[in-house]
């Protein structure tokens, strides 16, 4: 099991060299990384240092791009020495495709953190990209048992975020400057802004919000942290655990503390979590229950709207009459019960049906208005169920 982390300075690279099991360093250009600050010249300088220290430099290309932006970026990248990178990590599938077309010998790393939460999807990308794909970055929304399963079943190297901020929102729009620094907005195309955002819905929790030249990012108030829970993942064969320290550095460094934390992990220090300077959580490592509430969101009745559903109560005068709307053609002898919005089902009495003109009907047309005498407990939304073939 290896570790990866971000680097921005020669000091970062030195730290990574000294940190146990750090093998990959992630380099973020201002041109193509969501939080990238490095110029082409700075990157070229860093890569040389990385190579000298037998670390693997990975280019991070994690922005999403519309067609014109994509074309401009690709034109720029053609002037880079991309083959000096050990791998290129992408989020936009177009970026992956472009690399495959133009640089078939550079290994690809695909970030599926946002949109692949099942094994079939992951297998699909492994098959599609073939040998050029060397690693997939998995989502933290996958529980441990799924991560273990995928490590064992899918022939691919995987990476997971072991510690660091959780990205919860990514927009191409510059949302902070409009509100917090409108006077600077137009004059600075590379304005970076850092703010906290909280709402009643978040119960006052302050989410770190960052505006970069590539848009606006929002992070959860607590960091993902599973560095004290890696045993099973390591046994299952997880390739890389990423440690993101960018937000913990006061100056331009990105890897401040990487040596210490890797040392603690290697020593299996049980208090490694206490060392982390921010509050932590492991929201989905045990289980992901973010679809459990959905059943409660739906009305009890709606699932009953099948072929046996004859009509729906749409109005009425209490004690006097009911107005129904027929959902299908039916004979009044088919009627069986009325299901109330609460789910209670009552026998439907043997009463006469009339059309909207007051004429008695036995065969009711579909999509027609019907009137019956009042039925006790009936209310808007109740369904008339019947016996159908």
């Amino acid at each position, binding site marked *: 099991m290896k570790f990866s982390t971000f680097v921005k300075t020669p000091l970062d690279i030195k730290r990574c060299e000294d940190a146990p099991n750090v093998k990959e360093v992630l380099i973020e250009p201002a041109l193509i990384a969501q939080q990238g600050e490095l110029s082409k010249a700075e990157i070229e300088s860093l890569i040389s240092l990385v190579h000298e220290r037998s670390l693997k430099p990975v280019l991070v290309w994690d922005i999403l791009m519309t067609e014109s932006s994509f074309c401009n970026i690709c034109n720029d990248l053609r002037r880079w020495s991309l083959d000096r990178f050990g791998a290129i990590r992408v989020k936009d*599938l177009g970026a992956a495709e472009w690399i495959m077309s133009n640089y078939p010998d550079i290994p690809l790393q695909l970030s599926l953190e946002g949109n692949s939460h099942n094994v079939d999807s992951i297998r699909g990308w492994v098959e599609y990209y073939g040998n050029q794909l060397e690693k997939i970055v998995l989502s933290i929304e996958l529980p441990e048992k799924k991560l273990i399963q995928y490590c064992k079943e899918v022939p691919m190297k995987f990476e997971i975020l072991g510690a660091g901020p959780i990205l919860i929102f990514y927009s*191409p729009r510059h949302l902070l400057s409009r*509100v917090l620094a409108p006077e600077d907005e137009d004059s600075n195309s590379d304005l970076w802004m850092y703010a906290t955002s909280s709402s009643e819905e978040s119960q006052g929790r302050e989410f770190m919000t960052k505006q970069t030249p590539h848009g606006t990012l929002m992070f959860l108030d607590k960091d993902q942290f599973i560095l004290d829970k890696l045993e099973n993942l390591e046994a299952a064969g997880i390739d890389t655990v990423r440690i993101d320290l960018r937000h913990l550095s006061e100056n331009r460094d990105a890897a401040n503390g990487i040596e210490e934390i890797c040392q603690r992990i290697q020593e299996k220090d049980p208090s490694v979590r206490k060392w982390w300077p921010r509050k932590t959580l492991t929201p989905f490592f045990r289980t992901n229950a973010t679809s459990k509430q959905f059943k409660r969101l739906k009305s009890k009745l709606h699932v009953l709207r099948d072929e046996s559903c004859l009509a729906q109560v749409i109005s009425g005068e209490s004690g006097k009459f009911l107005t129904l709307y027929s959902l299908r053609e039916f004979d009044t002898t088919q009627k069986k019960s009325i299901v109330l919005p609460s789910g209670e089902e009552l026998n439907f009495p043997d009463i006469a049906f009339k059309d909207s003109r007051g004429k008695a009907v036995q065969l009711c047309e579909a999509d027609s208005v019907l009137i019956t005498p009042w039925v006790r407990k009936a209310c808007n939304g109740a369904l008339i169920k019947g016996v159908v073939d």
Partner: protein
Amino acid sequence: MMLKPEILAPAGNLERLRVAVLYGADAVYVGGQKYGLRARADNFTDAELGRGVHFAHRHGAKVYVTLNAFLHDEDFAGLPAYCKFLESIEVDAVIASDLGVIRCIKKHSDLKIHLSTQQSCLNSYSAKVWKSLGIRRIVLGREASVIEAGQIIDKTGLEIEMFVHGAMCMSYSGNCTISNYTAGRDSNRGGCIHSCRFEYDQQLEKATSKNTLHVINNNKANTIQSNFMSSKDLMGLEQVPDFFKYGIHSLKIEGRMKSAFYVATTCKVYRRMVDAYADSSLTEKIFLDSREEISTIPHRDFISGSLQEPAGKDSVYTQENTVGNGTHKYHGLVLESDSKRMVVRLFAPLTVGDTIDLLPFTADTIPYKVETLTSLTGEAMIVAKQESVVCIPKPDHFEAVAAFNIVRSKNLEVCHEV
């Protein structure tokens, strides 16, 4: 010959499907009980899907079913059988985001697959990936312009569908998971709680610019309250000529959670604009009338989104109400209509003397002063309550009024989405 784009309307239930088709939609998109991104909606049961497809096809319209959630492994139960069911009722296409779902659809059916905007496909190289995976139409991310859409069409040969009207997210589609952590509801499986519409307290920590190499503003500002993530609504009426020019295949209207009034109005307006442009009869008057008509439904302030150029600082909706006012409110739906009378289901009280508008499917709006109201049992009424069903006499020249016509009235107070 220029391609005439399809008008694709949202249909949250069977009633709105019928309204959409009758008001001119060439196609509708609907959700079933599972696998989609609207967990809160009632969505279509299997029986309703069958009826909906039958109705749409009878009127020459298509039906696309959303299977666009990003599923977890355990969510796949039932999906193969569901694909076979959709194929059996002759659904015209399904809309999917997840590669695992797409592989399942292809394995178990021959359904045509459209790629959902949730995948944020924004460029031709990304589109080529999906083309080689069997996708024939892409619902482009809302960050792409019409010109860029045209470039993607030219480079890939794919059909491109674009959102042209309705609510917008601030984030790239599929890239907002706020509700996963604040409400325990997966936004990418239908649980989005619209965190973007809340008011936020914001405090600036730091602002820097590399160019100037100094901190611009390092003072912690006072807390500012803002709806900084709430986007204005998209309206693409002005871009109708561009949709033709760049060969856009489908113009998608957002709003499966929205009312039949919204569906009817948007379909009628975009139908009129597209038809007028297609037969070279689009005038400034038609455009202005359309613009006025589209303002009758509840909406936030309108922008053209990124259809022309990237959405900028004027794209934030800052008003207190999470949804803005329309000039009119949804008053009722005509359930039956014959030569003498209309049977109307009311969604607001109606009093003798009130003036309502009747919206025929294609003809001009008919203002109508209600002189007589009768209950279904024949009793004369002065006031009919909300949720009642009434009979209103139908004048001779109202032959255009039919079942599923919308009834609206001027909005004298704040209007909320039905």
